[in-house]
């Protein structure tokens, strides 16, 4: 019973802590992208929120490099980066590897905040032109070149060749992309490689956070004008994306917490049973106390305090268990930013208290209502 209570409390604390941590992790991750970001995808979604749907409506017009340039000319927009994403075979010196290839421009690096371990990123210049260079992630460099110098070498990407001018620093994660495995080539080269007319995305940053809404309206207007009056793109802002993730993860946290809460209720029922047994075992003593002059309220209090102490003892044990499991989790997954939401701890303790009180009422009432004469003759 004590165990059930402590497991319940530990579960609430650990699970909500995990959920909360996931939420933090995602927000931090998004924050690292900058909060001025707008993502423009071809196709229109009717439903709000979420990403662009591949199934929505008639086939949209392609987003082109020229569209991106037009957006970039807006006074509200700071940087714009046309993007193509694909998988391709990359090879050098007989070694070959299938890896994500990103078609981009020099502004890509500034928007993403990437830094280079060696060399330079893609050069500024006309994005329609293939400058014949590429930048690779550190893992690709390791796997293809080993200990040898990669800068200046000619890499084969699909059926095209490019000269390696830079190696991305290992700083790592970036939503949806593993920088270490990436090969970045000029967007024009990527379009030619994939034999595709349209971009996967255009990323743009507004000049300030306040301009986000106006910027996205203006982008729609620009696209509409260029696409013969069709607003056939979906703009997802950083905030909207973050809010969606946040909602999902919060819901998840509460659900998981709720499930753990059910175990608290089970613990409560167990406590009630223990207390009922204890009342019937101590019938004679309760009768004696009443005969000696204990009022009903005092007996009630006595048993409520006992039930509550039981459940709180369980809860404290549960907190200890929670701390232990947290330490264990951190030992195996040290990277996990596990937080302890104070509200989860408080809620778990409060629930335990409430459970003890709530489920203690019935047995305590039973004790308080005992008839002293009958209770005393009970053997």
């Amino acid at each position, binding site marked *: 019973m004590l165990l059930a209570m402590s497991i319940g409390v530990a579960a609430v604390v650990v699970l909500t802590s995990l959920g909360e941590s996931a939420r933090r992790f995602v927000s931090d991750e998004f924050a690292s992208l900058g909060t001025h970001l707008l993502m423009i995808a071809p196709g229109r979604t009717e439903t709000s929120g979420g990403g662009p749907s591949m199934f929505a409506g008639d086939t949209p017009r392609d987003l082109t490099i020229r569209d991106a340039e037009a957006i970039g000319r807006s006074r509200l927009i700071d940087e714009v980066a046309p993007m193509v994403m694909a998988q391709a075979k990359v090879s050098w010196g007989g070694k070959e590897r299938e890896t994500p290839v990103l078609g981009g421009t020099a502004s890509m690096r500034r928007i993403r905040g990437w830094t280079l371990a060696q060399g330079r990123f893609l050069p500024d210049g006309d994005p329609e032109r293939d400058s014949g260079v590429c930048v690779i992630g550190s893992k690709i460099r390791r796997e293809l070149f080993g200990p040898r110098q990669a800068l200046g070498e000619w890499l084969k990407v699909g059926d095209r060749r490019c000269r390696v001018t830079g190696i991305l620093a290992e700083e790592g994660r970036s939503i949806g992309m593993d920088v270490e495995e990436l090969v970045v080539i000029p967007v024009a080269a990527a379009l030619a490689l994939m034999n595709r007319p349209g971009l996967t995305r255009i990323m743009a940053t507004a000049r300030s956070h306040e301009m986000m809404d106006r910027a996205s309206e203006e982008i729609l207007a620009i696209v509409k004008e260029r696409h013969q009056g069709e607003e056939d793109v979906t703009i997802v802002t950083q905030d909207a994306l973050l809010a969606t993730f946040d909602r999902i993860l919060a819901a998840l946290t509460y659900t998981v917490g709720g499930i753990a809460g059910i175990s608290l209720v089970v613990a409560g029922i167990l406590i009630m049973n223990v207390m009922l047994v204890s009342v019937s075992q101590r019938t004679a003593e309760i009768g004696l106390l*009443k005969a*000696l*002059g204990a009022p009903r309220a005092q007996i009630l209090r006595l048993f409520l305090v006992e039930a509550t102490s039981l459940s709180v003892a369980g809860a404290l044990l549960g907190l200890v268990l929670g701390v232990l499991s947290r330490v264990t989790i951190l030992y195996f997954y040290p990277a996990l930013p596990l937080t302890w939401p104070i509200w989860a701890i408080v809620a778990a303790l409060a629930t335990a208290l409430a459970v003890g009180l709530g489920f203690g009422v019935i047995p305590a009432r039973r004790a308080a209502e005992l008839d002293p004469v009958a209770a*005393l003759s009970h053997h």
Partner: protein
Amino acid sequence: MIELRQISRDFEVGDQTVHALRAVDLEIRAGEYLSLMGPSGSGKSTLMHILGLLDRPTSGTYELDGKDVTALDDAAQAAVRRNEIGFVFQFFHLVPYLTAAENAELPLVLSGVDPAERRERVSAGLASLGLSERADHRPDQLSGGQRQRVAIARAMVSAPSVLLADEPTGNLDRSSGSEVIRLIEDLHEQRGLTLVIVTHDQEMGRRATRQISMVDGEVEEDRDGARP
């Protein structure tokens, strides 16, 4: 001063009604020594429970020192039980895992008396019943007579004005029984305690100044030695 007027107590057993007490009128003066006798089932214990506020009458009024205690609520009745009435049972009813001193202390704990005073009153009480040596013994380490003396100490720690004893010697052999009776009588004499003892023992009953015999829920005879 106890005044019972038209006290009845009915028990419903199945579809039958048992009249344990039938319209009992009884007046007990302060400091009186009264014995209650009568055949088994005549209603002695029922009357004692009502006197001790352990049970409520089906009808009738009970006045204790001029106030109608049948009308009081649970908390107020409990206070009367704590402060004015001591009860001694046939089966002692000590808490088995508490020592003699702790058992005797219970009413004071319930009254919220502070620990230092509790200790003092309990050790004085145990001493007056010749139990000082046994203060730390548990009930199962005591003889029947000693247990009943602990129960008397417990009944007396709150200095009540009335002591009710329902067959206090019923579970004791003759010698320890008469010792217990003598102790109770001492308390009666020294403190002017109102004493009501239920007994089946004629000889013991005759020691009381007033003897009441009950039959079938009614007072059949009331012999008052003090009032001819």
